[in-house]
């Protein structure tokens, strides 16, 4: 039955053989960094170029011009419509996620300028319950679309998600058509979506707004996959291709316009926003 799963949340960080690597230790080359070193290097390993997961607020700081960020929809929080209880209550998981990340949900949205170009910005945080998309994420993303549409500006989304928020049951699945509808309304208003996919962008988020980008940019080495790789592995019972479902193979296979290393992202987005600023 496990091959029937097509959405799964894999909220664990990649683990080494030991299974308990420090989050500041590079999983590729084992280099270790202090918090401030990692922040300085926008969470990219100086030795091997590995892209660590990056907190949403740090991403906003990296991309938005200083002082330009105006966060929106901060009041929206997840509810617990099913009274969901697995090994622990969903409501408890939510509180814990908020305490750990300092975020109200797995996404922050707001207005900003990037390289001088006004835009709307929506950034996901994998540390908040694996970046899973529940009703609150769907609503905040949709409001970002509306905000972009109202102001006639592009929306830049930065995704990082293990998939749907299972604890909200079928309502988490409904966030797929909900966010797609928001993007389509925004498209009809003439605003483009620039989708930046970071590690990992999977399942429900990949199968909704992230792949609807008019331009799609991926960070190097990011896992971009609909089903989880373990599920695919179980289905296949064959060795997976070397760079299976990573940004690089997604680029080769025609699903991504560019693979852009994190430090270059601000200048690439500036260029793109400049081009779309010309839209009629």
């Amino acid at each position, binding site marked *: 039955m496990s091959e029937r799963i097509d959405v799964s949340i894999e909220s664990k960080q990649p683990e080494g053989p030991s299974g308990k690597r420090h989050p500041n230790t590079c999983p590729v080359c084992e280099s270790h960094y202090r918090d401030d070193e990692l922040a300085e290097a926008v969470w990219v390993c100086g030795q091997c170029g590995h892209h660590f997961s990056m907190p949403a607020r740090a991403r906003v700081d990296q991309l938005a011009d200083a002082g330009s960020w105006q966060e929106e929809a901060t009041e929206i929080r997840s509810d617990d419509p099913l009274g969901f209880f697995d090994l622990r209550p969903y409501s408890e998981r939510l509180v814990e996620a908020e305490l750990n990340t300092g975020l109200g949900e797995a996404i922050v949205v707001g207005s900003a300028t990037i390289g001088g170009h006004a835009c709307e910005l929506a950034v996901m945080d994998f540390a908040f319950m694996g970046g899973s998309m529940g*009703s609150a994420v769907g609503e905040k993303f949709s409001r970002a679309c509306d905000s972009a549409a109202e102001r006639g500006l592009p929306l830049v989304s930065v995704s990082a998600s293990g998939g749907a928020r299972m604890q909200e049951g*079928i309502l988490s699945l409904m966030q797929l*058509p909900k966010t797609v509808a928001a993007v389509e309304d925004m498209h009809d208003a003439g605003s483009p979506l620039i989708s930046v996919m970071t590690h990992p962008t999977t399942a429900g988020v990949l199968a909704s707004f992230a792949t609807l980008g008019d331009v799609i940019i991926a960070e190097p080495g990011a896992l971009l996959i609909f089903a989880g790789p373990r599920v695919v592995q179980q289905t296949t019972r064959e060795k997976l291709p070397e760079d299976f479902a990573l940004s690089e193979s997604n680029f080769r296979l025609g699903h991504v316009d560019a693979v852009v290393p994190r430090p270059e992202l601000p200048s690439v987005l500036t260029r793109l926003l400049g081009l779309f600023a010309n839209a009629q």
Partner: protein
Amino acid sequence: MRSEAELRLRERLSKLRSMRLLSGARLDGELERLERQLELMQAEPTEEEIWRSVELARHQDRPYTLDYVERLFEDFFELHGDRAQGDDQAIVAGLGRFEGRTLAVVGHQKGRDLKERTARNFGMAYPEGYRKAMRTMRLADRFGFPVVTLVDTPGAYPGVVAEEHGQGGAIAASQAVMLRLTVPTVACIIGEGGSGGAIAIAVADRVLMQENAIYSVISPEGCAAILWRDASQARRAAEAFKPDAAHCLELGVIDGIVVEPEGGAHEDHDEAARLLGESVREALDELDGVPRDELRRRRRAKFRSLGVYA
């Protein structure tokens, strides 16, 4: 949350009750069906009943898309292929006449025997399947044919080639296409409404669900494996995430419940088809006369309203 669907149903019931004086047996049957629907809508299923739905939704004798197509649509002409990569038999698409009117039909198709199951990939589609669905729905839009989709899949196929062909992007694009159509659209979950693979063709003006179908973001087994770290806790998982029709209706995810024959749709394919046909006709009737742009506007607004947050 359930009020709109319930109100619609109550209205129709009272209309039928008043017509009963004039008409005969068919109306009696109709009345009975609607009363049963109302009952279902108000039910609060137990864990037992939820699990029974999971079992019936997957029952090997349950009618599949083509079983309904052959009973409900005249002159069915199947459309094949996505015009680029192949013809995915896990999804059936075509044109057919329903009560005198041409519709486009798109549905997942499982197989009855081992050979067909393999050919149909157990109803798990590749991106090719969703691209065939999109092509068909765009064609329907061009010629003003309403679209009916029948949803019955464990999920989109989680394979290497499916990923390489852009499974996530195809599912997103198919939803976008459905949200752009300006013809009436009706979806019905007739078995397993499994996650992204289901929603890809279920973004309709009216979403119906058969009494014993399930609709969920993940399979009970998958959910149990991840959250309980034990796939055998599937029953417990199903109770927790409530994939049954009554709960889906309560959450506003579906607009109506389609009655099944006593014991489940597998007990009587003809009667199951008749009952499905009635509900599809009602849904189409409700959508008739709505201007095309307004259909699209309402459809988007409806899906944008789904979710519960604080």
